[in-house]
């Protein structure tokens, strides 16, 4: 004898009727139960929703029934969530707790992303700002050091400071020195002088000063030697204008090629580790490289190891004073770099090692010495010949 298996509550009884609600799928029950909802509670709520849908579809049509169904789902969701949380807290399995925590974390992530998207969305244009490479800011206007046409390229910001697309900004010459200004902001400076240019984007408008100072040449200090830990050293850059006079305004960009050796804070050199790199200075059409050597401080010229980092000794000598220092074995370069504030001169004297000296041409310049000490005991003497001497004695292995 065969008997029909008893139907278990919560299992579907074949297909739904034609008026069955569109959203009432069995997977909804299983999904909620898997998250930790009480199976009987879920079946009661979804059963009532299905029954209500069928009754309303019969009297008011499927559209009205679907609207009611959706509204009831929304109204019941907080209760289902609350009931599920309480059920998991009281009777949940570890798996249910993990799944629910995962769902809550996902929802929190989505909510955070939505909030972040709302907070970071761009607003309407609120103000113009001058690009960093064009000078000091809106109060001083734009400095143009180019000899060739160059775009002003103002930034457009919203009220929150977000940068917006600036391709729609239009420019026109207003007053001052006559310079060609294209609608897209290309200006051409052929001589020194100031002009006023108007920038417009919709209702937003600003008048800014354009300081023309086309450059012929960039000038610098030459190679910079900076002691590790010394943050007082500044990079000095000057320019010569087309008319031959020193440039009064420079809109320069400076970068250090190897930022692991040093960085720049404005014009201040911030050494990070011993080594050699190059600072690249650009202004207008001109480009200049400044070698930068960050050196470790030492107390002895004998401390240099083969292929080691450059070392530096601080030197303070009264006029006529002599200091004699033992040098390490090997092929060395020794260089005296006078402090920029002093106009001292030094003279090298050597003993026990073949050395080739390159004397100072003028006080305050550099004096170089190349030595090849084959045995220990060699010394180098340094004599202040014109007034007191103050500077760095830089020691490095010859390449």
């Amino acid at each position: 004898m065969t008997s029909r298996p008893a139907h278990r509550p919560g299992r579907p009884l074949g297909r739904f009727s034609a008026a069955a609600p569109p959203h009432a799928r069995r997977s909804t029950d299983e999904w909620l139960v898997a998250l930790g909802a009480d199976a009987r509670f879920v079946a009661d709520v979804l059963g009532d929703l299905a029954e209500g849908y069928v009754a309303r579809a019969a009297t008011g049509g499927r559209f009205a029934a679907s609207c009611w169904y959706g509204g009831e789902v929304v109204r019941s969701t907080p209760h289902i969530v609350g009931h599920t949380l309480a059920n998991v807290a009281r009777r949940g399995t570890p798996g249910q707790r993990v799944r629910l925590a995962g769902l809550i974390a996902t929802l929190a992530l989505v909510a955070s992303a939505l909030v972040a998207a709302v907070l970071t969305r761009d607003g309407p244009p609120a103000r113009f700002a001058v690009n960093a490479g064009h000078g000091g800011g809106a109060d001083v206007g734009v400095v143009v050091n180019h000899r060739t046409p160059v775009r002003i390229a103002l930034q457009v910001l919203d009220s929150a400071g977000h940068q917006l697309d600036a391709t729609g900004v239009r420019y026109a010459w207003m007053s001052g020195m006559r310079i060609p200004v294209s609608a897209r902001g290309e200006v051409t400076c052929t001589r020194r002088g100031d002009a006023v240019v108007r920038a417009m984007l919709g209702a937003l408008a600003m008048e800014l000063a354009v300081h023309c100072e086309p450059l012929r040449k960039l000038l610098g200090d030459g190679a910079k030697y900076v002691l590790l830990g010394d943050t007082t050293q500044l990079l000095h850059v000057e320019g010569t204008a087309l008319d031959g006079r020193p440039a009064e305004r420079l809109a320069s960009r400076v970068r250090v090629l190897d930022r692991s050796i040093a960085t720049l804070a404005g014009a201040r050199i911030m050494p990070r580790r011993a080594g050699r790199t190059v600072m690249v200075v650009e202004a207008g059409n001109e480009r200049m490289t400044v070698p930068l050597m960050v050196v470790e401080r030492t107390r002895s010229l004998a401390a240099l190891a083969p292929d080691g980092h450059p070392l530096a000794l601080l030197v303070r000598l009264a006029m006529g004073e002599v200091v004699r220092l033992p040098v390490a074995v090997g092929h060395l370069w020794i260089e005296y770099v006078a402090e920029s504030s002093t106009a001292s001169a030094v003279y090298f004297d050597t003993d026990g090692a073949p050395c080739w000296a390159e004397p100072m041409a003028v006080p305050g310049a550099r004096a170089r010495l190349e030595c090849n000490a084959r045995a220990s005991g060699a010394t180098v003497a340094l004599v202040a010949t014109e007034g007191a001497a103050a500077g760095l004695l830089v020691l490095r292995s010859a390449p």
Partner: protein
Amino acid sequence: MTSPSIGSLELTILLAVARLGDEAYGVAIRRDLAERTAREHSIGAVYTTLQRLEDKGLLRSRSSEPLPVRGGRSRRCFALTGAGARALQEARAQAASVWAGVPPLGPKRA
């Protein structure tokens, strides 16, 4: 023995279950509440309260056979327990006591 304290919606639902007798299940209870209070309570709110009353021992429930109209799910029919009946009696007595001595309410005559 004192009955567990019950709130306003709990009392209303207990009364609906008492009125509906064997027909006291979710849809019928919600319909009864809507007719008597002129408020549409959500299905979730009604079942949360029914569950709470069952946990307090004031209601008991049984499942019907699965029904196609419910997508193959059973109806859960509720009935008052002895404690539930006592709670209703106490609520009625308390209401009568609270209302005792209150004169007929209405606009005052000059």
